[in-house]
């Protein structure tokens, strides 16, 4: 069964590798953005889906990663790739430090606290004018080369980031740590009396998640070549990331990626055809997901598609 799934994944990956050579620059950009969100959702799913901690403000690590790349490239003349480990490290350190007090909170309280963290870091970045450029933003060195090459470069950079995120998520789900996280998600008291050091494992899960999201931010900064606090600490990204995880299913490795692909592609179509009501359509879609697919596509349609299951989810209306 695993081999069949793995074969399908390899085939899917092969198609994604070939795509840039046959599609237009527009779709290349759309897919690059889709990979970005898929990687963010996959990384965030380690704390949100596996561990059951709704880190609504996980985009904070995305912003920090973006600024780490931005500052290291502009102020310290580092190469783009050389900044990547620092993006991951910034996420790990920040999550480890914040995890000690914040991961004592649960549910809505934790979610709100993470949003508070995002807002605090955004304000800090906004006020550290000398280092970050403050509200004026930071202009990164522009990549040299033909536009087509640059498009493909970031397409593959995001794809590699996504594959890396999937690989980490897969490994976490299969090793001893994964069992602990899944136990914590269901019942933290039961997990702790079984010998699981819950504060340590929750912090580890958040750190791994933050490292992936931080790397996504670093790539995004170089791709955009200009960042300011309002383009990288974005609340709507958090909403999208959450909707993607919910849509695909937070208990699976590829669920968040599937959610990201569906939501980003729908969002792009809606954006291009109905620009005036784009936000409204996206909002309705999120409400639909929460009402009808709270456990995600994978969990809901394990045995095949049926309207009955959609309706029963609506009746139960619980996550």
């Amino acid at each position, binding site marked *: 069964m695993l081999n069949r799934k793995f074969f399908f994944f390899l085939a899917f990956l092969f198609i994604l590798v070939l795509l840039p050579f046959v599609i237009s620059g527009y779709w290349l950009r759309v897919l690059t953005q889709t990979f970005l969100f898929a990687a963010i959702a996959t990384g965030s799913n380690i704390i949100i889906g596996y561990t059951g901690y709704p880190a609504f403000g996980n985009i904070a690590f995305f912003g920090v990663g973006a600024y780490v790349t931005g500052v290291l490239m502009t102020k310290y003349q580092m190469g783009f790739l050389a900044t990547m480990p620092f993006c991951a490290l910034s996420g790990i350190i920040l999550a480890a430090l914040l995890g000690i007090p914040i991961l004592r909170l649960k549910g809505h309280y934790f979610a709100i606290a993470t949003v508070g963290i995002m807002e605090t870091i955004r304000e800090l970045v906004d006020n550290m004018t000398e280092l970050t450029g403050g509200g004026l933003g930071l202009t990164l060195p522009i990549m040299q080369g033909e536009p087509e090459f640059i498009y493909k470069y970031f397409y593959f950079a995001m794809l590699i980031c996504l594959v890396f995120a999937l690989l980490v998520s897969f490994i976490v789900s299969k*090793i*001893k740590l994964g*069992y*602990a996280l*899944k*136990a914590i*998600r*269901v*019942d933290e*008291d*039961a*997990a*702790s*009396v*079984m*010998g*699981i*050091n*819950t504060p340590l494992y929750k912090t580890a899960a958040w750190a791994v998640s933050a490292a992936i999201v931080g790397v996504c931010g670093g790539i995004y900064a170089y791709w955009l070549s200009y960042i300011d606090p309002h383009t990288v600490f974005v609340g709507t990204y958090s909403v999208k990331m959450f909707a993607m995880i919910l849509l695909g299913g937070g*208990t699976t490795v590829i669920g968040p990626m599937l959610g990201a692909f569906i939501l980003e592609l729908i969002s792009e179509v809606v954006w291009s055809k109905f620009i005036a009501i784009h936000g409204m359509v996206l909002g309705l879609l999120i409400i639909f997901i929460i009402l009808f697919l709270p456990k995600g596509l994978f969990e809901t349609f394990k045995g095949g598609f049926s309207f009955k299951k959609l309706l029963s989810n609506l009746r139960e209306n619980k996550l």
Partner: protein
Amino acid sequence: MVLLEAKNVAKSYGGLKVLTDVTFSVNQGEIVGIIGPNGAGKTTFMNLVSRLTSITGGVINYKGQPINNKKPHEIAKLGIARTFQVVKPFGGLSVLENVMVGAFYGKRNLNSKSEAKDVAEDALKVVGLEDVKDKDPRILPLAKRKKLEVARALAMGPDLLLLDEVMAGLGAKELADIMSEIIKLKEKGITIIAIEHVMKAIMGISDRIVVLHLGKLICEGTPSEVVKNPAVIEAYLGSKYAKKE
């Protein structure tokens, strides 16, 4: 040899005293039953031993060492495993994987997946759940979910097993099954503290009984001694009916 010793244990929530001055000990290899009407403080005592709640007064020693300040996961690593009154299977993990969690993180602290699987399979055999090992535990009937709780605790490799109402809600046949399984565990050298409301069962399996009432220890002794104790009869039946008895 004394394995667990409670000395003047007290627990209160603000002004509400849930346990007052509870003192008793559990010897290695014993089955000790804790009984008492609802609200007697039985589950609170178990929560204090597993450190899900903090102790207000007194001390609990395990193998001669105080465990008051240990964290729940440290208690588990010392060899104390417990089940819950309200069964808590880890949904999203199969029955086997649920039990593997115990093998991974309990006293055994295994790192190898294959070793954890072997231990989990053995534990499932002990409680007779090997045929449902690949199932989602949430779909199992109550009796099997209770057995799963026991299997999960067993996989941890405990020296002391705390059973919180594992027999409640079971039918006669299931009750007989689980009673014989608990006796088998004792034969394997595991010390057991069991909270139970099913009197026939707890009297049948326990070496000694501790009776709590309104947070106080009112009687301790063998099952035959305890059933004759006037304080116990009064606690269960009330003074009016106890006098008639």
